[in-house]
Protein backbone atom coordinates (compact mmCIF):
# COMPACT_ATOMS: atom_id res chain seq x y z
CA UNK A 1 0.00 0.00 0.00
CA UNK A 2 2.86 2.38 0.90
CA UNK A 3 4.51 1.68 -2.45
CA UNK A 4 1.26 2.34 -4.31
CA UNK A 5 0.87 5.66 -2.49
CA UNK A 6 4.44 6.65 -3.31
CA UNK A 7 3.93 5.77 -6.97
CA UNK A 8 0.73 7.82 -7.04
CA UNK A 9 2.51 10.74 -5.39
CA UNK A 10 5.27 10.74 -8.00
CA UNK A 11 2.74 10.50 -10.82
CA UNK A 12 0.77 13.52 -9.55
CA UNK A 13 3.95 15.43 -8.75
CA UNK A 14 5.22 14.81 -12.28
CA UNK A 15 1.97 16.12 -13.78
CA UNK A 16 2.08 19.12 -11.44
CA UNK A 17 5.62 20.04 -12.44
CA UNK A 18 5.01 19.51 -16.16
CA UNK A 19 1.83 21.61 -16.13
CA UNK A 20 3.58 24.23 -14.01
CA UNK A 21 6.30 24.40 -16.65
CA UNK A 22 3.64 24.73 -19.36
CA UNK A 23 2.21 27.77 -17.54
CA UNK A 24 5.41 29.73 -18.16
CA UNK A 25 6.40 28.22 -21.50
CA UNK A 26 3.11 28.29 -23.46
CA UNK A 27 2.95 30.96 -26.18
CA UNK A 28 -0.80 31.31 -25.83
CA UNK A 29 -2.00 32.87 -22.54
CA UNK A 30 -5.20 30.80 -22.53
CA UNK A 31 -3.21 27.57 -22.73
CA UNK A 32 -1.08 28.84 -19.83
CA UNK A 33 -4.24 29.45 -17.83
CA UNK A 34 -5.51 25.93 -18.54
CA UNK A 35 -2.15 24.51 -17.43
CA UNK A 36 -2.42 26.53 -14.23
CA UNK A 37 -5.84 24.95 -13.59
CA UNK A 38 -4.19 21.57 -14.05
CA UNK A 39 -1.55 22.54 -11.47
CA UNK A 40 -4.27 23.56 -9.01
CA UNK A 41 -5.88 20.18 -9.56
CA UNK A 42 -2.65 18.38 -8.69
CA UNK A 43 -2.31 20.49 -5.54
CA UNK A 44 -5.86 19.49 -4.59
CA UNK A 45 -4.88 15.84 -4.96
CA UNK A 46 -1.93 16.45 -2.62
CA UNK A 47 -4.31 17.92 -0.05
CA UNK A 48 -6.45 14.79 -0.24
CA UNK A 49 -3.35 12.63 0.25
CA UNK A 50 -2.48 14.73 3.32
CA UNK A 51 -5.93 13.99 4.88
CA UNK A 52 -7.21 17.50 4.15
CA UNK A 53 -10.27 17.00 1.93
CA UNK A 54 -11.76 20.38 2.91
CA UNK A 55 -8.69 22.20 1.64
CA UNK A 56 -8.81 20.15 -1.57
CA UNK A 57 -12.44 21.05 -2.27
CA UNK A 58 -11.86 24.72 -1.46
CA UNK A 59 -8.73 24.76 -3.60
CA UNK A 60 -10.69 23.60 -6.65
CA UNK A 61 -13.76 25.68 -5.85
CA UNK A 62 -11.98 28.98 -5.25
CA UNK A 63 -8.87 28.83 -7.42
CA UNK A 64 -9.88 26.60 -10.32
CA UNK A 65 -13.60 27.36 -10.20
CA UNK A 66 -13.69 31.10 -9.59
CA UNK A 67 -10.39 32.94 -9.85
CA UNK A 68 -9.10 31.22 -12.98
CA UNK A 69 -12.47 31.60 -14.69
CA UNK A 70 -12.27 35.35 -14.10
CA UNK A 71 -8.68 35.47 -15.37
CA UNK A 72 -9.67 33.58 -18.53
CA UNK A 73 -12.67 35.87 -18.86
CA UNK A 74 -10.41 38.94 -18.85
CA UNK A 75 -7.95 37.36 -21.28
CA UNK A 76 -10.74 36.49 -23.69
CA UNK A 77 -12.10 40.03 -23.58
CA UNK A 78 -8.71 41.68 -24.06
CA UNK A 79 -7.50 39.08 -26.59
CA UNK A 80 -3.95 40.43 -26.53
CA UNK A 81 -1.86 39.47 -29.53
CA UNK A 82 1.69 38.15 -29.40
CA UNK A 83 3.16 41.63 -30.19
CA UNK A 84 1.82 42.97 -26.88
CA UNK A 85 3.33 40.02 -25.05
CA UNK A 86 6.65 40.59 -26.86
CA UNK A 87 6.73 44.13 -25.48
CA UNK A 88 6.94 42.71 -21.96
CA UNK A 89 9.88 40.41 -22.68
CA UNK A 90 12.03 42.16 -20.06
CA UNK A 91 9.70 40.79 -17.39
CA UNK A 92 11.21 37.35 -18.03
CA UNK A 93 14.53 38.53 -16.57
CA UNK A 94 12.83 39.73 -13.38
CA UNK A 95 10.90 36.47 -13.07
CA UNK A 96 14.12 34.51 -13.56
CA UNK A 97 15.87 36.44 -10.77
CA UNK A 98 12.87 35.92 -8.46
CA UNK A 99 12.87 32.19 -9.25
CA UNK A 100 16.59 31.87 -8.44
CA UNK A 101 16.10 33.71 -5.11
CA UNK A 102 13.18 31.39 -4.32
CA UNK A 103 15.30 28.33 -5.09
CA UNK A 104 18.05 29.55 -2.75
CA UNK A 105 15.45 30.11 -0.03
CA UNK A 106 14.05 26.58 -0.44
CA UNK A 107 17.54 25.02 -0.35
CA UNK A 108 18.44 26.98 2.82
CA UNK A 109 15.23 25.95 4.56
CA UNK A 110 15.67 22.29 3.63
CA UNK A 111 19.29 22.33 4.79
CA UNK A 112 18.57 23.99 8.15
CA UNK A 113 15.74 21.82 9.43
CA UNK A 114 13.53 20.09 6.94
CA UNK A 115 9.78 20.01 6.70
CA UNK A 116 8.99 16.35 7.34
CA UNK A 117 8.28 14.62 10.63
CA UNK A 118 6.74 17.65 12.32
CA UNK A 119 4.57 16.77 15.30
CA UNK A 120 1.52 18.71 16.45
CA UNK A 121 -1.85 18.01 18.04
CA UNK A 122 -3.62 17.40 14.72
CA UNK A 123 -2.10 14.13 13.53
CA UNK A 124 -3.55 12.10 10.68
CA UNK A 125 -5.47 9.90 13.17
CA UNK A 126 -7.07 12.91 14.91
CA UNK A 127 -8.06 14.43 11.57
CA UNK A 128 -9.56 11.10 10.48
CA UNK A 129 -11.66 10.71 13.63
CA UNK A 130 -12.79 14.31 14.28
CA UNK A 131 -13.06 15.40 10.66
CA UNK A 132 -11.01 17.95 8.81
CA UNK A 133 -13.79 20.49 8.28
CA UNK A 134 -14.67 20.44 11.98
CA UNK A 135 -11.05 20.99 13.03
CA UNK A 136 -10.62 23.95 10.67
CA UNK A 137 -13.92 25.44 11.85
CA UNK A 138 -12.97 25.10 15.51
CA UNK A 139 -9.52 26.62 15.00
CA UNK A 140 -10.88 29.46 12.91
CA UNK A 141 -13.59 30.51 15.35
CA UNK A 142 -11.63 30.13 18.59
CA UNK A 143 -7.83 30.58 18.45
CA UNK A 144 -7.68 32.43 15.15
CA UNK A 145 -10.84 34.50 15.43
CA UNK A 146 -9.04 37.86 15.28
CA UNK A 147 -6.97 37.12 12.15
CA UNK A 148 -10.08 35.66 10.55
CA UNK A 149 -12.09 38.82 11.24
CA UNK A 150 -9.24 41.05 10.07
CA UNK A 151 -9.07 39.10 6.82
CA UNK A 152 -12.80 39.52 6.31
CA UNK A 153 -12.60 43.27 6.92
CA UNK A 154 -9.76 43.43 4.40
CA UNK A 155 -11.95 41.64 1.86
CA UNK A 156 -14.82 44.02 2.57
CA UNK A 157 -12.52 47.00 1.94
CA UNK A 158 -11.39 45.38 -1.32
CA UNK A 159 -15.02 44.90 -2.42
CA UNK A 160 -15.89 48.52 -1.64
CA UNK A 161 -12.77 49.61 -3.51
CA UNK A 162 -13.75 47.52 -6.55
CA UNK A 163 -17.22 49.06 -6.57
CA UNK A 164 -15.78 52.59 -6.35
CA UNK A 165 -13.33 51.89 -9.19
CA UNK A 166 -15.97 50.31 -11.41
CA UNK A 167 -18.57 53.04 -10.95
CA UNK A 168 -18.91 55.26 -13.98
CA UNK A 169 -18.97 58.58 -12.09
CA UNK A 170 -17.96 59.10 -8.50
Amino acid at each position, binding site marked *: MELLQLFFFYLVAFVAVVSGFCVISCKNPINSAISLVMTFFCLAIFYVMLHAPFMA*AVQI*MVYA*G*AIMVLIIFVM*MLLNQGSEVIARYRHAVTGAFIAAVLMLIQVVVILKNGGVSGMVGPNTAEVVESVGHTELIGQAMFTDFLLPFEIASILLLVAIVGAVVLAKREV
Partner: protein
Amino acid sequence: MSEMLSLSNDPLLFISVMVAKILAVFLVVVLIVAYATYAERKIIGRMQTRLGPTMTGPLGLLQPIADGLKLFFKEDIIPAQSSKLAFILAPMMILVPAFITIAVIPFGGMITVGGYQVPLQITDLNVGILYILAMAGLGVYGIVLAGWASNNKYSLLGGVRSAAQMVSYELAAGLAIISVFMLSETLSLRGIVEAQAGSVMDWYIFSQPLAFCLFVITSLAEINRTPFDLPEAETELVSGFCTEYSSMKYALFFMAEYANMIVVSAITATLFLGGPAGPFPGPINLLLKVFFFMFLFIWIRATFPRVRYDQLMFMGWKVFLPLALLNIVITGAVVVF
Protein backbone atom coordinates in the same frame (compact mmCIF):
# COMPACT_ATOMS: atom_id res chain seq x y z
CA MET B 1 -24.11 -5.54 12.32
CA SER B 2 -21.40 -6.82 10.01
CA GLU B 3 -18.32 -4.95 8.91
CA MET B 4 -18.16 -2.35 6.13
CA LEU B 5 -16.55 -3.70 2.97
CA SER B 6 -13.26 -1.86 2.40
CA LEU B 7 -10.00 -2.24 0.55
CA SER B 8 -8.32 -3.67 3.65
CA ASN B 9 -10.67 -6.55 4.56
CA ASP B 10 -11.42 -7.99 1.09
CA PRO B 11 -9.59 -6.15 -1.72
CA LEU B 12 -10.82 -8.30 -4.60
CA LEU B 13 -14.49 -8.17 -3.62
CA PHE B 14 -14.20 -4.43 -2.87
CA ILE B 15 -12.79 -3.64 -6.30
CA SER B 16 -15.34 -5.79 -8.13
CA VAL B 17 -18.24 -4.26 -6.16
CA MET B 18 -16.91 -0.77 -6.90
CA VAL B 19 -16.58 -1.47 -10.62
CA ALA B 20 -20.09 -2.95 -10.67
CA LYS B 21 -21.53 0.13 -8.90
CA ILE B 22 -19.74 2.56 -11.22
CA LEU B 23 -20.83 0.67 -14.35
CA ALA B 24 -24.44 0.43 -13.16
CA VAL B 25 -24.68 4.15 -12.34
CA PHE B 26 -22.95 5.13 -15.57
CA LEU B 27 -25.24 2.96 -17.70
CA VAL B 28 -28.38 4.28 -16.01
CA VAL B 29 -27.25 7.88 -16.48
CA VAL B 30 -26.36 7.36 -20.15
CA LEU B 31 -29.71 5.68 -20.74
CA ILE B 32 -31.57 8.54 -19.06
CA VAL B 33 -29.55 11.06 -21.08
CA ALA B 34 -30.55 9.31 -24.32
CA TYR B 35 -34.21 9.09 -23.45
CA ALA B 36 -34.35 12.56 -21.89
CA THR B 37 -33.91 13.98 -25.39
CA TYR B 38 -36.85 11.86 -26.53
CA ALA B 39 -38.93 12.84 -23.50
CA GLU B 40 -38.15 16.51 -23.99
CA ARG B 41 -39.23 16.49 -27.64
CA LYS B 42 -42.33 14.46 -26.85
CA ILE B 43 -43.42 16.54 -23.84
CA ILE B 44 -42.74 19.92 -25.46
CA GLY B 45 -44.49 18.65 -28.56
CA ARG B 46 -47.60 17.79 -26.55
CA MET B 47 -47.49 21.13 -24.72
CA GLN B 48 -47.39 22.92 -28.06
CA THR B 49 -50.17 20.66 -29.48
CA ARG B 50 -47.77 18.79 -31.73
CA LEU B 51 -46.98 15.08 -31.65
CA GLY B 52 -43.18 15.11 -31.36
CA PRO B 53 -41.19 12.25 -32.93
CA THR B 54 -43.44 9.41 -34.11
CA MET B 55 -41.78 7.85 -37.14
CA THR B 56 -38.74 5.94 -35.81
CA GLY B 57 -39.92 2.75 -34.15
CA PRO B 58 -43.15 2.41 -32.13
CA LEU B 59 -44.18 5.86 -30.78
CA GLY B 60 -40.82 7.15 -32.04
CA LEU B 61 -39.00 5.29 -29.29
CA LEU B 62 -35.95 4.59 -31.45
CA GLN B 63 -35.46 8.31 -32.16
CA PRO B 64 -32.53 8.82 -29.70
CA ILE B 65 -30.66 5.90 -31.30
CA ALA B 66 -31.27 7.28 -34.78
CA ASP B 67 -30.10 10.73 -33.65
CA GLY B 68 -27.00 9.25 -32.08
CA LEU B 69 -26.12 7.26 -35.20
CA LYS B 70 -26.66 10.29 -37.39
CA LEU B 71 -24.39 12.50 -35.29
CA PHE B 72 -21.81 9.72 -35.09
CA PHE B 73 -21.49 9.41 -38.87
CA LYS B 74 -21.51 13.15 -39.58
CA GLU B 75 -18.29 14.77 -40.77
CA ASP B 76 -16.29 16.18 -37.88
CA ILE B 77 -15.33 19.74 -38.89
CA ILE B 78 -12.59 21.65 -37.04
CA PRO B 79 -12.44 25.29 -38.19
CA ALA B 80 -9.08 26.21 -39.74
CA GLN B 81 -8.62 29.33 -37.59
CA SER B 82 -9.50 27.63 -34.31
CA SER B 83 -7.14 26.66 -31.49
CA LYS B 84 -7.10 22.93 -32.12
CA LEU B 85 -6.24 21.63 -28.67
CA ALA B 86 -8.76 23.76 -26.79
CA PHE B 87 -11.39 23.09 -29.46
CA ILE B 88 -11.08 19.31 -29.02
CA LEU B 89 -10.70 19.49 -25.24
CA ALA B 90 -13.72 21.73 -24.57
CA PRO B 91 -16.56 19.19 -25.09
CA MET B 92 -14.77 16.72 -22.82
CA MET B 93 -14.18 19.35 -20.16
CA ILE B 94 -17.90 20.02 -19.97
CA LEU B 95 -19.00 16.37 -19.97
CA VAL B 96 -16.56 14.95 -17.42
CA PRO B 97 -17.48 17.20 -14.42
CA ALA B 98 -21.15 16.45 -15.10
CA PHE B 99 -20.60 12.70 -14.94
CA ILE B 100 -18.21 12.53 -12.00
CA THR B 101 -20.53 14.57 -9.78
CA ILE B 102 -22.89 11.59 -9.71
CA ALA B 103 -20.26 9.59 -7.80
CA VAL B 104 -21.23 11.12 -4.44
CA ILE B 105 -25.00 10.81 -4.73
CA PRO B 106 -26.46 8.10 -2.46
CA PHE B 107 -29.09 5.98 -4.19
CA GLY B 108 -30.07 3.65 -1.37
CA GLY B 109 -29.26 2.34 2.08
CA MET B 110 -26.89 -0.51 2.93
CA ILE B 111 -26.94 -3.93 1.28
CA THR B 112 -25.04 -7.06 2.30
CA VAL B 113 -22.58 -8.55 -0.20
CA GLY B 114 -20.58 -11.63 0.85
CA GLY B 115 -21.07 -10.90 4.56
CA TYR B 116 -19.98 -7.27 4.35
CA GLN B 117 -22.00 -4.05 4.42
CA VAL B 118 -21.95 -2.14 1.13
CA PRO B 119 -23.45 1.36 0.82
CA LEU B 120 -25.53 2.04 -2.30
CA GLN B 121 -23.41 5.01 -3.35
CA ILE B 122 -20.21 5.04 -5.36
CA THR B 123 -18.31 6.88 -2.66
CA ASP B 124 -19.22 8.91 0.41
CA LEU B 125 -16.94 11.93 0.72
CA ASN B 126 -17.09 13.79 4.00
CA VAL B 127 -16.92 17.01 1.96
CA GLY B 128 -19.59 15.79 -0.49
CA ILE B 129 -21.39 19.09 -1.03
CA LEU B 130 -18.17 21.03 -1.51
CA TYR B 131 -17.11 18.41 -4.08
CA ILE B 132 -20.34 19.00 -5.98
CA LEU B 133 -19.86 22.78 -5.89
CA ALA B 134 -16.25 22.41 -7.01
CA MET B 135 -17.23 20.22 -9.96
CA ALA B 136 -20.03 22.62 -10.90
CA GLY B 137 -17.45 25.39 -10.98
CA LEU B 138 -15.30 23.38 -13.39
CA GLY B 139 -18.14 22.89 -15.88
CA VAL B 140 -17.80 26.50 -16.98
CA TYR B 141 -14.37 25.87 -18.55
CA GLY B 142 -15.88 23.68 -21.25
CA ILE B 143 -18.25 26.40 -22.41
CA VAL B 144 -15.73 29.24 -22.10
CA LEU B 145 -13.05 27.29 -23.97
CA ALA B 146 -15.48 26.15 -26.65
CA GLY B 147 -16.51 29.76 -27.20
CA TRP B 148 -12.98 31.04 -27.33
CA ALA B 149 -11.40 28.23 -29.35
CA SER B 150 -13.98 28.41 -32.14
CA ASN B 151 -12.60 31.84 -33.16
CA ASN B 152 -16.09 33.06 -33.99
CA LYS B 153 -17.64 36.17 -32.49
CA TYR B 154 -20.98 34.52 -31.72
CA SER B 155 -19.20 31.66 -29.97
CA LEU B 156 -17.01 34.08 -28.02
CA LEU B 157 -20.04 36.10 -26.90
CA GLY B 158 -21.75 32.89 -25.80
CA GLY B 159 -18.66 31.83 -23.87
CA VAL B 160 -18.28 35.22 -22.16
CA ARG B 161 -21.94 35.29 -21.21
CA SER B 162 -21.79 31.81 -19.77
CA ALA B 163 -18.71 32.62 -17.69
CA ALA B 164 -20.40 35.64 -16.13
CA GLN B 165 -23.67 33.77 -15.62
CA MET B 166 -22.19 30.65 -14.06
CA VAL B 167 -19.85 32.52 -11.72
CA SER B 168 -22.65 34.72 -10.40
CA TYR B 169 -25.23 31.96 -9.99
CA GLU B 170 -22.78 29.50 -8.48
CA LEU B 171 -22.45 31.87 -5.56
CA ALA B 172 -26.18 32.05 -4.91
CA ALA B 173 -26.56 28.27 -5.29
CA GLY B 174 -23.72 27.66 -2.85
CA LEU B 175 -25.19 30.05 -0.30
CA ALA B 176 -28.60 28.40 -0.64
CA ILE B 177 -27.04 25.03 0.19
CA ILE B 178 -25.26 26.42 3.27
CA SER B 179 -28.56 26.65 5.17
CA VAL B 180 -29.12 22.93 4.49
CA PHE B 181 -25.90 21.83 6.08
CA MET B 182 -26.42 24.25 8.95
CA LEU B 183 -29.38 22.02 9.82
CA SER B 184 -27.78 18.66 9.06
CA GLU B 185 -24.41 19.56 10.65
CA THR B 186 -22.56 17.49 8.07
CA LEU B 187 -21.21 17.98 4.55
CA SER B 188 -21.55 14.32 3.61
CA LEU B 189 -24.53 13.58 1.36
CA ARG B 190 -25.22 10.32 3.15
CA GLY B 191 -25.27 12.24 6.42
CA ILE B 192 -27.76 14.72 4.97
CA VAL B 193 -30.00 11.89 3.80
CA GLU B 194 -29.83 10.32 7.27
CA ALA B 195 -30.68 13.68 8.88
CA GLN B 196 -33.86 13.72 6.82
CA ALA B 197 -34.83 10.15 7.67
CA GLY B 198 -38.01 9.64 9.64
CA SER B 199 -41.26 11.14 8.42
CA VAL B 200 -41.86 13.09 5.22
CA MET B 201 -42.07 16.27 7.31
CA ASP B 202 -38.35 15.89 8.12
CA TRP B 203 -37.45 16.59 4.50
CA TYR B 204 -35.63 19.90 4.18
CA ILE B 205 -38.07 21.13 1.55
CA PHE B 206 -40.45 21.85 4.45
CA SER B 207 -37.96 23.48 6.82
CA GLN B 208 -36.06 25.25 4.02
CA PRO B 209 -38.62 26.19 1.35
CA LEU B 210 -36.76 29.38 0.40
CA ALA B 211 -33.45 27.56 0.00
CA PHE B 212 -35.22 24.93 -2.13
CA CYS B 213 -36.68 27.52 -4.52
CA LEU B 214 -33.40 29.43 -4.69
CA PHE B 215 -31.43 26.27 -5.39
CA VAL B 216 -33.73 25.04 -8.16
CA ILE B 217 -33.77 28.42 -9.92
CA THR B 218 -30.05 29.12 -9.59
CA SER B 219 -29.09 25.63 -10.70
CA LEU B 220 -31.31 26.05 -13.75
CA ALA B 221 -29.24 29.12 -14.50
CA GLU B 222 -26.02 27.28 -13.83
CA ILE B 223 -26.76 24.48 -16.27
CA ASN B 224 -27.86 27.03 -18.90
CA ARG B 225 -31.40 25.73 -19.34
CA THR B 226 -34.27 27.90 -20.53
CA PRO B 227 -35.16 30.55 -19.33
CA PHE B 228 -31.46 31.13 -18.64
CA ASP B 229 -29.99 29.68 -21.85
CA LEU B 230 -28.36 32.93 -22.92
CA PRO B 231 -25.02 31.31 -23.88
CA GLU B 232 -26.82 29.59 -26.75
CA ALA B 233 -29.60 32.10 -27.41
CA GLU B 234 -30.34 31.18 -31.02
CA THR B 235 -32.18 34.40 -31.88
CA GLU B 236 -29.11 36.54 -31.26
CA LEU B 237 -26.07 34.23 -31.15
CA VAL B 238 -26.86 31.53 -33.81
CA SER B 239 -26.24 28.78 -31.25
CA GLY B 240 -23.69 30.48 -29.05
CA PHE B 241 -20.66 28.57 -27.90
CA CYS B 242 -21.43 25.45 -29.94
CA THR B 243 -21.95 27.25 -33.29
CA GLU B 244 -18.77 25.81 -34.86
CA TYR B 245 -19.17 22.31 -33.46
CA SER B 246 -20.38 19.33 -35.46
CA SER B 247 -20.71 15.57 -35.27
CA MET B 248 -19.89 13.82 -31.98
CA LYS B 249 -18.41 16.95 -30.38
CA TYR B 250 -21.76 18.64 -30.78
CA ALA B 251 -23.44 15.54 -29.38
CA LEU B 252 -21.15 15.72 -26.34
CA PHE B 253 -22.42 19.23 -25.54
CA PHE B 254 -25.97 17.95 -25.63
CA MET B 255 -25.14 14.91 -23.53
CA ALA B 256 -23.52 17.24 -21.01
CA GLU B 257 -26.61 19.41 -20.88
CA TYR B 258 -28.85 16.45 -20.09
CA ALA B 259 -26.31 14.90 -17.73
CA ASN B 260 -26.24 18.21 -15.87
CA MET B 261 -30.03 18.14 -15.66
CA ILE B 262 -29.85 14.68 -14.09
CA VAL B 263 -27.14 15.79 -11.67
CA VAL B 264 -29.04 18.88 -10.56
CA SER B 265 -32.25 16.86 -10.16
CA ALA B 266 -30.45 14.21 -8.13
CA ILE B 267 -28.75 16.80 -5.90
CA THR B 268 -32.02 18.61 -5.30
CA ALA B 269 -33.72 15.32 -4.46
CA THR B 270 -30.88 14.41 -2.08
CA LEU B 271 -30.68 17.76 -0.31
CA PHE B 272 -34.35 18.63 -0.02
CA LEU B 273 -36.47 15.53 -0.66
CA GLY B 274 -34.79 12.88 1.48
CA GLY B 275 -32.82 11.30 -1.41
CA PRO B 276 -33.66 7.62 -1.71
CA ALA B 277 -36.36 7.73 1.02
CA GLY B 278 -39.86 6.72 -0.03
CA PRO B 279 -42.30 3.81 -0.47
CA PHE B 280 -40.29 1.86 -3.08
CA PRO B 281 -36.73 0.43 -2.93
CA GLY B 282 -34.12 3.22 -2.68
CA PRO B 283 -32.87 3.58 -6.28
CA ILE B 284 -36.42 3.65 -7.66
CA ASN B 285 -37.46 6.41 -5.25
CA LEU B 286 -34.47 8.51 -6.28
CA LEU B 287 -35.16 7.89 -9.97
CA LEU B 288 -38.80 8.96 -9.54
CA LYS B 289 -37.71 12.19 -7.87
CA VAL B 290 -35.13 12.79 -10.61
CA PHE B 291 -37.79 12.22 -13.29
CA PHE B 292 -40.10 14.65 -11.52
CA PHE B 293 -37.49 17.42 -11.58
CA MET B 294 -36.53 16.70 -15.18
CA PHE B 295 -40.20 16.95 -16.16
CA LEU B 296 -40.33 20.25 -14.26
CA PHE B 297 -37.31 21.59 -16.17
CA ILE B 298 -38.80 20.55 -19.51
CA TRP B 299 -42.10 22.11 -18.50
CA ILE B 300 -40.33 25.36 -17.60
CA ARG B 301 -38.64 25.35 -21.01
CA ALA B 302 -41.98 25.01 -22.76
CA THR B 303 -43.54 27.77 -20.65
CA PHE B 304 -41.18 30.69 -20.06
CA PRO B 305 -39.50 33.07 -22.52
CA ARG B 306 -35.78 33.69 -22.19
CA VAL B 307 -34.78 36.42 -19.72
CA ARG B 308 -32.78 39.40 -20.92
CA TYR B 309 -29.09 39.52 -20.03
CA ASP B 310 -29.34 42.55 -17.73
CA GLN B 311 -32.37 40.99 -16.00
CA LEU B 312 -30.35 37.82 -15.48
CA MET B 313 -27.48 39.67 -13.80
CA PHE B 314 -29.89 41.81 -11.79
CA MET B 315 -31.70 38.73 -10.46
CA GLY B 316 -28.50 36.89 -9.65
CA TRP B 317 -26.79 39.63 -7.69
CA LYS B 318 -29.62 41.75 -6.33
CA VAL B 319 -32.40 39.23 -5.69
CA PHE B 320 -31.07 35.68 -5.23
CA LEU B 321 -27.85 36.54 -3.42
CA PRO B 322 -29.48 38.75 -0.72
CA LEU B 323 -32.31 36.22 -0.32
CA ALA B 324 -29.81 33.40 0.18
CA LEU B 325 -27.91 35.47 2.76
CA LEU B 326 -31.15 36.33 4.55
CA ASN B 327 -32.04 32.64 4.60
CA ILE B 328 -28.69 31.82 6.22
CA VAL B 329 -29.21 34.49 8.89
CA ILE B 330 -32.74 33.23 9.69
CA THR B 331 -31.61 29.59 9.77
CA GLY B 332 -28.72 30.52 12.04
CA ALA B 333 -31.05 32.35 14.41
CA VAL B 334 -33.45 29.39 14.51
CA VAL B 335 -30.63 26.89 15.09
CA VAL B 336 -29.11 28.93 17.96
CA PHE B 337 -32.31 29.98 19.78
